[in-house]
């Protein structure tokens, strides 16, 4: 039997590890565009940009993992096409057949149209280690950086760049930063951290143009204002990489569509991680985080080996900014009822829908987070008034029926 994995990120790595853990001893072939074996992306917006950090990324597995686990690693290579009739992929000019195929192709940063960015030097995006190395070489103290997009990647970069001594402005199109990904309560606190660190935040303004002739010198906003910049980083979201799936005739709609088991509409072809779209709490979602890449990929690996197991994720996310760590479990949606828990000076926000606990956001309190994650995973829903009572010991909620 042969399993081919396309993509070189966390999902690809996790699927392979799980296959071997479960005793699968057939062929595994990994095709990745990247020149490195799967590495960790989260540090790219943080520690990787620090002065003196290595050019090489932090690898997910020790170097000898790939040989020990007999993985045929095809780095800096691309799959040209997938043939769903013959169950084969074209790598370069070579046709390779598979029994199972895992699409772990990830996502790419959303771009502004070329006529808007005009190919100006000094505009960056951040997805892979080459992007991060390019950006790092430009992050010199005293320069001014404009971040277009106030999502987590933008806010992490803002914190990193301030620590490196740059002047930083964040421009967010929505009425507030982190609008799509965090509650108002949490984003208010994060906003405060950035204001205390002298980041300029411009919310509710669209970026409508880029200034400069050869090098970027600033951006223009929808209210006509101009903001000067020596460099600009776009952090305006990602688009799932589904070109191969699309060309192969697999069902695609903002991601490769998979069922509860991770299977595409063709038996034997699976998808996991950022590129996969699946039904979660009654709507189609893609979860763009490390935890989902791990869990969904492991679930696919298990199902390839016959587990027949539904994927029931507990969405989990973390972000480091300045000396703070934010951790989120569950999916927050506007309109949820929020209670705040304050215990030993640590804050967490507990979000409920019709008295069902749906999401918890935790600031600088890993222990509370670990318990909240377990509560949500187990489907437990402690009453809001009990959670808000800081005399209550959280762990007790795990034991009560």
């Amino acid at each position, binding site marked *: 039997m042969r399993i081919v994995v396309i993509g070189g990120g*966390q999902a690809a*790595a*996790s699927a392979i*590890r799980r296959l071997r853990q479960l005793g699968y001893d057939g062929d595994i072939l990994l095709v990745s565009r990247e020149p490195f074996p799967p590495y*960790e992306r989260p540090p790219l917006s943080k520690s990787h940009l620090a002065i003196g950090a290595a050019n090489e990324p932090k690898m*997910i*597995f*020790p170097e000898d*993992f790939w040989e020990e686990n007999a993985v045929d690693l095809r780095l800096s290579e691309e799959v040209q096409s997938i043939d769903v009739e013959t169950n084969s992929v074209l790598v370069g000019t070579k046709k390779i057949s598979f029994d199972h195929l895992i699409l772990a192709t990830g996502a790419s940063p959303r771009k502004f149209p070329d006529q808007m960015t005009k190919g100006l030097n000094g505009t960056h995006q951040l997805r892979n280690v080459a992007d991060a190395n390019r950006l790092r070489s430009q992050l010199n103290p005293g320069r001014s950086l404009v971040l277009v997009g106030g999502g987590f990647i933008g806010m992490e970069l803002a914190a990193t760049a301030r620590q490196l001594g740059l002047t930083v402005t964040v421009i967010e199109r929505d009425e507030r930063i982190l609008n799509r990904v965090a509650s108002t309560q949490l984003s208010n606190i994060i906003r405060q951290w950035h204001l205390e660190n002298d980041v300029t935040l411009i919310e509710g303004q669209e970026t409508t143009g880029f200034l400069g002739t050869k090098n970027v010198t600033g951006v223009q906003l929808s209210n006509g204002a101009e903001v000067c910049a020596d460099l600009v980083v776009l952090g305006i979201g990602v688009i799932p990489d589904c070109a191969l799936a699309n060309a192969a005739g697999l069902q695609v709609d903002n991601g490769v569509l998979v069922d509860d088991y991770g299977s595409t509409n063709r038996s034997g072809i699976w998808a996991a991680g950022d590129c996969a779209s699946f039904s979660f709490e009654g709507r189609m979602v893609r979860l763009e985080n*490390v*935890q989902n890449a*791990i869990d969904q990929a*492991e679930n696919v690996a298990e199902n390839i080996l016959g587990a027949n197991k539904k994927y029931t994720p507990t969405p*989990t996310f*973390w972000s480091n900014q300045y000396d703070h*760590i934010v*951790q989120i479990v569950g999916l927050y949606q506007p309109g949820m009822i929020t209670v705040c828990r304050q215990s030993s000076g640590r804050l967490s926000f507990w979000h409920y829908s019709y008295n069902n606990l749906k999401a918890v956001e935790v600031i600088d309190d*890993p*222990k509370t*987070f*670990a*318990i909240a*994650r*377990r509560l949500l995973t187990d489907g437990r829903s402690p009453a809001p008034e009990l959670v808000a009572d800081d005399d209550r010991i959280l*762990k007790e909620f795990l034991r009560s029926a």
Partner: protein
Amino acid sequence: MQKWIEACAADNIDNEDLIRFDHGTRTFAIYRSPSDDYYCTDGLCTHEEVHLADGLVMDHIIECPMHNGQFDYRTGEAKRTPACVNLKTYPVKIENGNVFINIGAD
């Protein structure tokens, strides 16, 4: 070289829980299992330097509070990515209601 160190009173650790124990420049995690057996591992997750003492013990698993890696604290085995390097474990004995750990030479 055997070196037993007194770490804490046995009932300082709740059932199915753990504590952090620092000794010199080193940090350890000491666990009490649901059946009241005691175990000791290195205190930091092998994935990134996070104190496991902030994590959650469920049965014989310690779950790292940061990135959800899991270890069997009895053997140190990494059970779940992103953790993939095993935790070092240390012998433990209980004497007169106190927990002693053997961390070898300093």
